[in-house]
């Protein structure tokens, strides 16, 4: 109990609150700016968090992750162009509402729905993560290996058009994670005599390169081919913004149901906010009452999409906190941030850093309140950011990526790695190999290797001994089942399983 109160007290310390506020503010701006999304924002912000205390850093990054989702709704409503893919479902009703002169009302609904989803998602995280971590303490290396393989298969299946290519990317990530000192014998592996590689390929450099820089290269490519940035978008005027208590009561059940959907989808590895928002919207539409105007300007539609989107973000942290497994790319970046500050998420997280985790929870709830405050005050001001052209945004983000990679280590090596992985990321994107699965494979690589090695020792390398581990066997069978299912039914387009 002492840890709980001490942790919550830490969360409301002025410096922590300041960084939460800063994160929320930056998150909103990034969410609204065209071409930027949550993973890019987190990748660019990681080096900035390097100089902060562990709690301030995590609070800052969590603030960005939360608010960028909420900010993405602004362009969806005003321009019919989601600032983030997660907000695509918001366009369906948000834009028609704006066209009818109710843009401000739609923005308000999106804000309140985002905050509601976020708070309920955070509460679900608080309730579920610690018990799951306690359960996971009894999980041995054989089961852990099986869990990681199942997660990787799920993520690979959902983050691209082909499961096989997704898995190839993930395993390639695992391969590159073996660069550096061997975990058992401490002998160098594939370091090519470079001292900088003894600790492995720098994670931050890879994250910034693969997510931030590659994304900007792709955006630049779009400008080269379309020159679409030359026209400044015309945004719909805010119009009527009055939201009556009756309307709030009308959307309340939708928000509660969508929060549950967001939490359920968010917890599963590989599924992300974009899937949550579409599932939630589809269910809301299917359960529509007489008089509801779905796809023609229905506030319930905006509420359904935004609530689920924002509930999925904290929920995706459940497997990260409890098992040390990032279920989404944002969770993977947060895992990197935890590790930079000497904290390893996983089953022992709450036992070893209980007070810190309560402080993180406290900071997340504070972030939810700041989201409401900043979003409400800046409702119209943020909308004006949609006018910022991409040929200003892209150069700034590219330089932030490169300078950020340099600031983190003060070494040109890290910057060179960043650029090299940006090029690799672009090539992977061109050939449809998922960068997200690669990154998650790279991050869980050392955990997977450790667990697999321990499992080999325990089983003596005999396959038949796996039969003594029914849970692991069930998970292996599930992984194979997922694999077969997705190979037999390839998708025509990726689901963008991240967020």
């Amino acid at each position, binding site marked *: 109990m002492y840890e709980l109160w001490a942790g919550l007290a830490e969360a409301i310390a002025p410096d922590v609150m300041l960084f939460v506020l800063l994160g929320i503010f930056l998150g909103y701006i990034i969410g609204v700016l065209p071409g930027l999304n949550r993973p890019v924002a987190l990748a660019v912000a990681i080096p900035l968090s390097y100089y902060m205390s562990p709690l301030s850093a995590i609070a800052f990054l969590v603030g960005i992750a939360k608010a960028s989702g909420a900010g993405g709704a602004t362009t969806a409503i005003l321009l019919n162009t989601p600032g983030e893919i997660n907000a695509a479902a918001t366009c369906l009703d948000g834009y028609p509402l704006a066209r009818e002169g109710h843009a401000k009302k739609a923005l308000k609904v999106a804000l309140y729905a985002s905050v509601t989803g976020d708070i309920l998602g955070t509460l679900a995280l608080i309730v579920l993560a610690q018990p799951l971590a306690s359960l996971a303490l009894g999980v041995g290396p054989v089961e852990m290996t099986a869990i990681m393989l199942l997660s990787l298969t799920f993520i690979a299946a959902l983050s691209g058009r082909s499961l096989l290519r997704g898995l190839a990317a993930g395993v390639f990530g695992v391969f590159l994670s073996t660069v550096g000192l061997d975990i*058992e*014998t401490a*002998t160098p592996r594939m370091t090519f005599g470079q001292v900088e590689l003894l600790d492995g390929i720098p994670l931050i450099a890879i994250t910034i390169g693969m997510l931030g*820089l590659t994304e900007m290269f792709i955006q630049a*490519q779009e400008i080269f081919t379309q020159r679409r*940035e030359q026209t400044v978008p015309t945004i719909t005027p805010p119009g009527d913004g009055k939201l009556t208590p009756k309307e709030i009561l009308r959307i309340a059940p939708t928000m509660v149901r969508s929060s549950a959907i967001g939490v359920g989808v968010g917890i599963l590895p590989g599924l992300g906010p974009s899937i949550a928002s579409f599932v939630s919207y589809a269910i809301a539409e299917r359960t529509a009452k007489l008089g509801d105007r779905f796809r023609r300007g229905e506030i319930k539609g905006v509420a359904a999409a935004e609530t689920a989107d924002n509930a999925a973000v904290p929920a995706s942290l459940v497997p990260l906190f409890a098992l040390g497994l990032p279920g989404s790319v944002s969770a993977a970046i947060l895992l990197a941030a935890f590790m930079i500050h000497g904290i390893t998420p996983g089953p022992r997280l709450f036992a070893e850093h209980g007070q810190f985790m309560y402080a993180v929870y406290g900071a997340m709830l504070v972030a939810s309140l700041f989201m409401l405050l900043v979003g409400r005050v800046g409702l119209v001001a943020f909308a004006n950011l949609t006018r910022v052209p991409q040929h200003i945004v892209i150069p700034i983000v*590219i*330089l932030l990526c490169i300078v950020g990679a340099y600031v983190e280590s003060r070494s040109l090596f890290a910057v060179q790695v960043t650029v090299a992985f940006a090029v690799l990321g672009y090539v992977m994107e061109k050939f*449809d190999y998922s960068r997200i699965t690669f990154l998650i494979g790279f991050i869980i690589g050392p955990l997977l290797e450790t667990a697999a090695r321990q499992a080999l020792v325990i089983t003596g390398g005999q396959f038949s001994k796996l039969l003594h581990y029914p849970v692991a066997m069930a998970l292996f069978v599930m992984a194979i089942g997922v694999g077969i299912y997705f190979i037999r039914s390839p998708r025509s387009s990726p689901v963008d399983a991240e967020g």
Partner: protein
Amino acid sequence: MKEQLERHGRPLKVVLEVMCIVALGLFVVLFIIPRETSGIGLGLNPSTVPTIAALVAAFLAAADGASRLIRSGPFVSSPLRMPALLIMSGVSVLTVFLLGYGGALLSVGVTLPLLMLILGERRWLRVLATTLSGVLVAYWMFA
């Protein structure tokens, strides 16, 4: 006619893609890993996991290529083009070079306006204001 050409051309691209990946995988397994890893005779050989990972990655990529050929698709043509990559990575390399030899301020001061010009910005006041802001932020970050 165009469709026919694409039908013939795309599988060839897939075959080339698979051949490159398999060749790279074999090169890593046969040359790089043996040369760059050394065991001390204790526990699992340090080269085991990277070797398995490299083989599995190459196998999966090859299997994907084979499945696409058998199913005659999907041959998705990526909108991404190499010239854009060359331009953007070239500017990034220039940024790194200037960062190493002239520091962050010079690096930002040169490449920020260059990138804006490349991306189509022609309003000098905007270029100047953005560059100045960028240099100030870089100064703040490094000071």
